[in-house]
């Protein structure tokens, strides 16, 4: 096999794997966070599919977006490290470090996304102490869901730029 086409195939596989894992991490992570924040009082699947609750769907979308953005920000440093590693010649040690960095970066992205969501929810809870947001959303109050989603989008936009720096410095990518 030509060296160039081999690199192209391997890089495409890694790139697609990164995007695929990022999507799974952001969707599953978002559902998990909603269950955790509401102490399992909201079943996301049931609310969206059976009750057609637009509010829950909106909040889920913003959670997926926040975690997904963090994951996407890690793709660039991971691919940069991949090409450097390929050029210098892989050994068992470098493959191990690359794999650990790969998984660690996605974990950092998930943790950062979760922190952003917590931070956004805290900001809202401090501003609206007399309102139980989750109860409102469960009862179908789309307006509250919109405010929560917008807050998460804005806080996420501020934080997404620092993720690649964290990944570069933590894993040496």
């Amino acid at each position: 096999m030509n060296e160039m086409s081999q690199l192209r195939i391997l890089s495409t596989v890694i790139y697609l794997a990164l995007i695929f894992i990022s999507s799974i991490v952001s969707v599953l992570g978002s559902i998990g966070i909603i269950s955790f924040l509401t102490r399992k009082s909201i079943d996301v699947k049931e609310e969206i599919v059976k009750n057609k609750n637009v509010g829950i769907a909106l909040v889920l979308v913003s959670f997926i977006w926040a975690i997904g953005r963090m994951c996407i920000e890690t793709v660039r440093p991971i691919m940069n490290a991949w090409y450097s590693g390929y050029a210098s010649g892989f050994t068992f040690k470098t493959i191990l470090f690359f794999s650990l960095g790969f998984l660690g970066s996605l974990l950092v992205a998930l943790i950062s996304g979760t922190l952003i969501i917590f931070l956004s929810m805290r900001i809202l809870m401090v501003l609206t102490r007399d309102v139980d947001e989750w109860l409102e959303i469960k009862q179908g109050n789309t307006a509250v869901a919109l405010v929560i989603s917008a807050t998460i989008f804005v806080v996420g936009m501020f934080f997404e730029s620092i993720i690649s720096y964290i990944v570069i410095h933590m894993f040496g990518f």
Partner: protein
Amino acid sequence: MNAKTKPINRTIALLSVLVMITLFIPLRKSTPFYLSFSRLDGRSQSFAGSKQANGKKGEGAFPKKEKYFQRNYKWLGVSKKQRETIFHIYEKDVKKEIKSFGVPHGQKSPLVIRKKGYMQFAPDQYMVNYKQIFQRNREYFPALTSSLLLSTELLPGGDPLFEFLVFVQQIPFKLPPKFYEGRFINSFFTPLICLYEKYGDCDTKSLLLAEFLDTSKDAKGKVAIVLADYFGTSHSILAINRKPLPGMTTLYHPQKGYFIPLETSAPGWSPGFLSKNVTDLFQRGHVFFIDLN
């Protein structure tokens, strides 16, 4: 049930191991791709300049009467091995280069300014004429490039792009002075002076990499300097006309197609990768694309 599935599981496991071996063993071979890696340790040295270009090469070609400067560079190659490159630069070439670029104090004639390495892009506004400097410096670089290539110990036909990029990235980043040897150089060193002074900024180092790539036989592709400016924040990178790989940032020119950016300012950036700040700058700012070859 178990008796039937066990041989199948073994076959799948064996097949997976075989696939892994076929995919990963060739990674350790040396490669002709532009992300190629080198093998041996070593030092290299040769002469730069017109005499060298006329055919005298290597250590045996010391012209005794010519004065020269020796510049040693110790750097980490792509394979993380310590490398040493020794460049010999003729004194007369350095003098010629200093004389060719930079406007003497008080000189305001547009004709002279243009002749001394600047181009006019608005009334009373000039910028460095990168193309002119690039083409003039070609004369000195075949020998310097072969010296650098020798120290990378690439196999014949191996693409030196990554090694050259890593070398240039490790040249200290420092803004050249506004005035050099009594001439206004607008904080830009020409490639030969950059090697002589052992430091440079983004456009200086980008043009130096362009010289190395252009004078190397194995590095293919057109190169261009890309400048970006956004409310006073400016940066320059080199771009090379190659097919991008997955995950790489690309620059698109309507007439010339796709270019891969090469970040020369700081180490750690592979071909096709830029920091987020630089990417934002190139997306938002005014971008100037200057063809070199």
